[in-house]
């Protein structure tokens, strides 16, 4: 029953990449657009460079804040390996928006394991609807390499119902004043991607 009217977005990344702020902005804009919204994430260990996921669910009425396996509509990835890791949770006709960035986990940095090759190509093989975004490049173009999360939100924004104005309002309410301009620029650059 709920499957039909709840949309599920799973954000995956590495601790420190700003997934938390991105999911805050996303939840805020969805609430402003009139949906019931729930969001779940795990703090603590994840802040120390570990694997991070944030669940965002919205619809008329949302119960669980965790997305059931196999029901992710959009997998929103901040890093290639972490996106690939959570791919099994995506539903058959789901979409992937992924940042074209590799961050080596400890075993890879130590030369003991290999980072999986051609992740973007593998994602495209398994899911029809994949958008690869050069987040870091666009963030630098916006003027700050730390705005990758906002670039990616821009890329995601086109696929969702809230209006451009609602997105801008949500960013304004959550991004600190001194970083606002560069984040708004990053959002617009991301919005042009897909």
């Amino acid at each position, binding site marked *: 029953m709920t499957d039909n009217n709840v949309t599920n977005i799973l954000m995956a990344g590495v601790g420190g990449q700003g997934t938390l702020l991105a999911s805050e902005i996303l939840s805020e804009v969805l609430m402003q657009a009139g949906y019931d919204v729930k*969001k779940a994430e795990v703090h603590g260990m994840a802040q120390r460079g570990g694997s991070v996921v944030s669940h965002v669910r919205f619809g008329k009425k949302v119960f669980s804040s965790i997305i059931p396996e196999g029901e992710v509509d959009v997998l929103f990835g901040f890093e290639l390996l972490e996106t690939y890791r959570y791919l*099994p949770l995506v539903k058959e006709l789901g979409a992937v928006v992924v940042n074209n960035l590799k961050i080596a986990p400890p075993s890879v940095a130590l030369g003991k394991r290999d980072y999986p090759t051609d992740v973007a190509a593998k994602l495209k093989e398994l899911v029809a609807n994949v958008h690869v975004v050069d987040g870091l490049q666009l963030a630098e173009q916006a003027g700050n390499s730390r705005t990758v999360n906002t670039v990616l939100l821009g890329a995601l924004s086109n696929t969702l119902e809230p209006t451009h104005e609602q997105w801008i309002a949500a960013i304004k309410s959550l991004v600190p004043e001194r970083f606002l301009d560069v984040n708004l620029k990053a959002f617009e650059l991301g919005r042009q991607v897909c």
Partner: protein
Amino acid sequence: MQKTILSGNEAFARAAYEAGVTVASAYPGTPSTEILENITQYERIDASWAPNEKVALEVGIGASIGGARTIVTMKHVGVNVAADPLFTFSYTGVRGGMVLVVADDPEMHSSQDEQDSRHYARFAKVPMFEPADSQEALDFTRLAFEVSEQFDAPIMVRSTTRISHSKSIVELGEPLMELPETGLVRDPSKFVMLPGNARIRHPLVEKRLEEMSEWACTQGFNRIEAGDGKLGIITSGVAYQYAREVFPDADILKLGLVYPLPKQMIRDFAARFDTLYVIEELDPFIEEQVKAMGINVIGKEKVPICGELSPGRLRQAFDLNPPNLPPIKEDLPPRPPNMCPGCPHRGVFHALNRLKAYVTGDIGCYTLGFMPPLSAMDTCICMGASIGNATGLSKVLNEEDRKKVVAVIGDSTFLHTGINGLMDMVYNKSTATVLILDNSTTGMTGRQDNPSTGFTLDGQLADQVDLEALCRALGVKHVETVDPAQMDTTRKVIKEAMERPEVSVVITRRPCVLIKHENVVEDLPPLYVKTDKCVACKACLTIGCPAIEWETGKDGSKGNCKVDRLLCNGCQVCMQLCKFDAFGVCDD
């Protein structure tokens, strides 16, 4: 009323404000930490970090005796520390309403065990509410203050990681305008729990629970949601959300008060169903009590007892349409948490590894010293246990092995409960070595202040505990302080301490790179690898810094290490390990 999105923890904080709380105390612990951090925004509340949970609760009890409404927060394992005053506070009851918010961590996302705090409610005979989302976190907690005063009892509110760290839409309430009056009221028969008085209080505690059980049958926080009448479910907390998700047509008795249970309400509900499930996270707490009432229910035969529930796990437990997951055949490298680039603990663990120490560990960022390649931790039990563990271990070892035993503990953890262990060490003539890893903050939970950092919860200047003087005052004769970024000195001083047949304390002091306060951490330029000098010996990889990555050689070349300059913070620990002068400092 204003609608906003709040996490459970933000909602608990808001509830305290709305209910007229004026005193709040806690020790940080994931997933409870943000409750107090959010309370600081409400100026009328005196909020502070205590050195441990027992002290936090004792502060709360004192404020309640003074007539104030008080909130105390902690994680599940913190209740173990606070259990002593909690059990007796249940007997005395309150003056001002007092709520203890306990955040459990099913799945152990960042905890050493999975204990279910509902047992503490029953064990200590303290009533307990359990919210299922942020709105209920606000409503139940606010209500709990009234209930506390109405029934003369401290009240526990149980959260779990998925309540504390989930966000959902909340309608805010009006804050209480008139605060409860505070002042001294002498009532020794109520507040002095010597046997004669306590014997009189115990029957009152039992009567209170019986009265609450009846009262709870008619209160809105326990409610029945009608379904198609075929299947009944009793549930509470976040498990309610998963039950609704997986069984949309079931009739649900949702319990808001999980202790004491509304017995008559449960009997009436149960009588209507042939099949009745109890869906609860972790232990069969409700299930066993319902079964003890003579009602047949299905619970842990199906629902897992270990780990966190989720809609997916519930579906699996009940064999309901499992999703077709597209398989990834590759075995992907895991991404565990790691000490940050520039972390001051890295040099310490490198030294311990090289000295082949047997390390009794403790709870904090430094627990990550367990991870390869540092691999320098052999035990980890609970906050403060490292020192006592070292004492016990060295009692049973021969002289040679005894020298290898080193306890490591952080500044905050030492003040939490480690200090008692050190007192015992000196008193009972232990020979072990204690390292206090002082990074000037409570790192793992998100950089909170503590009595040794010089700041309070709201960032005001505070007097600092002098750790060296404190250790000496406990009777430790050998107290030395080193900068753990100085690799050779650190190793030498630890080695000397290990050799010494007396208690020795080495304080390794260097601030956490993520510290909140300005001008504490030096802004150093990043390093780079001179590829012509790197001989691919990989010595620098032995510190496991996330900023250093091994680059495999292409077409038969040797390969070399490289530094990610965005991550590197210039601590130069790697440089000290390189015998070939292959690291340079970026000068741009």
